[in-house]
């Protein structure tokens, strides 16, 4: 992209984009439960937004008179773009996951207070810790400056940076981690929404990727896809080129899996009729391109299915949950990013955003 073109677009965006972003935020950048946004900005430094806080209740007794995003001082465009990205992440990949972990924490406290056996408490706490670390590693990092707006210092396990996801009993994990798994599904959906909507926004200005953050090296991406296609069977290659997904057969179980284009949360287990049973998520360590990841997933499922599933996370297993789980149901509906997903996101929003402003002057 020529710098001149980019400068022109950014200049145009500064003039024209803001109203669209306001609508965009209202329509999409908020899960249904989080209706209130508190915006802190520093009036001493050109109104740069310093904090965004999200609330799901209306009895916030310090709420200020309503303001609109359009009324906020326009910070430097780069800051504004960062704010937009952080808004998404803060909403979806941080707040929702934190909320999803809360039931598990409550259960742990209840186990401790109820005198559960130490091995059981330890086992539960370990599983929860693994999940927390997993969520943080895969859904709260990357190109988005999530913690520019601060973190919850009291969050358990926040000081850990790495953890080995150990093989574990999937059924038991489902039982004790239902809420986090639900949040995981939401986060995956939200991440896809975010990518999709930011792409849409870029397309509005004729420059795909303008708002999508750092792009994958297209040469690396192409090399990965070339390698993938070279190792696919002819029918798999044809499916991939036509539908951007292909099927593999589990080497141990004979089950059918559909691998969709992507790096994460892109494996569907299918029943005999080709209906999705649940999702699986595993990938090689490191920042590999999508083609490499899909090839590793194919080889792993075909030649080492059980070992792969031992480290994988299982997602969206709706029938095994005792109660309706709308998040997962919606996630299944939106398994593919297309116009229907966009429409779903729009439908999920039912009430207007209330924005309050706390100046830090």
């Amino acid at each position: 992209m020529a710098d001149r073109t980019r400068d022109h677009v950014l200049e145009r965006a500064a003039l024209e984009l803001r109203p669209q972003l306001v609508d965009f935020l209202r329509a999409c950048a908020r899960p249904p439960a989080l209706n209130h946004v508190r915006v802190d900005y520093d009036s001493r430094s050109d109104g740069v937004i310093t904090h965004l806080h999200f609330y799901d209740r209306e009895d916030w007794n310090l709420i200020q008179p309503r303001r609109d995003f359009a009324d906020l001082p326009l910070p430097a465009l780069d800051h504004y773009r960062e704010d937009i990205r952080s808004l998404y992440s803060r909403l979806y990949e941080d707040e929702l996951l934190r909320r999803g972990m809360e039931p598990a924490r409550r259960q742990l406290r209840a186990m401790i207070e109820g005198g559960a056996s130490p091995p059981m408490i330890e086992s539960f706490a370990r599983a929860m810790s693994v999940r927390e670390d997993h969520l943080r590693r895969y859904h709260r990092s990357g190109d988005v400056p999530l913690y520019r707006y601060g973190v919850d210092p009291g969050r358990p396990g926040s000081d850990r940076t790495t953890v080995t996801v150990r093989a574990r009993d999937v059924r038991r994990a489902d039982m004790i981690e239902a809420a986090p798994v639900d949040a995981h599904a939401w986060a995956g959906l939200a991440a896809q929404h975010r990518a999709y909507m930011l792409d849409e926004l870029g397309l509005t200005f004729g420059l795909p990727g303008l708002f999508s953050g750092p792009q994958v090296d297209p040469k690396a991406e192409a090399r990965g896809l070339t390698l993938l296609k070279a190792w696919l069977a002819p029918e798999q290659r044809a499916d991939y080129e036509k539908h951007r997904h292909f099927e593999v057969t589990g080497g141990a179980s004979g089950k059918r899996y559909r691998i969709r284009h992507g790096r994460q949360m892109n494996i569907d287990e299918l029943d005999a009729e080709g209906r999705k049973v649940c999702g699986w998520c595993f990938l090689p360590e490191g920042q590999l391109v999508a083609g490499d990841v899909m090839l590793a997933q194919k080889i792993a499922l075909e030649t080492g299915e059980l070992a792969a599933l031992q480290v994988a996370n299982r997602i969206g297993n709706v029938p095994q949950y005792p109660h309706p789980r709308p998040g997962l149901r919606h996630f299944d509906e939106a398994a593919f990013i297309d116009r229907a997903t966009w429409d779903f996101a729009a439908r999920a929003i039912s009430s207007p955003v209330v924005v309050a402003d706390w100046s830090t002057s």
Partner: protein
Amino acid sequence: MAAQIVMDHTGDTRHEFDPKDAAAIAAAEARFKELTGLGFTAATRTGPGKAELARSFDPTAPETIFFPRLQGG
């Protein structure tokens, strides 16, 4: 020529070697052991769309692919 294909952030890195060259085979075997020792999985192509895990170095395999250790995502 045989090839060892190592997945990485560039897509992949290919190491080609002559299976008739003893020194090249030794280097390829050392690379195989190094990578698998680091947790990489090795697989060879056995037919169109078919692969099998390589537990040990096979100098006759035309293509061996290596991908990093799997993790839950």
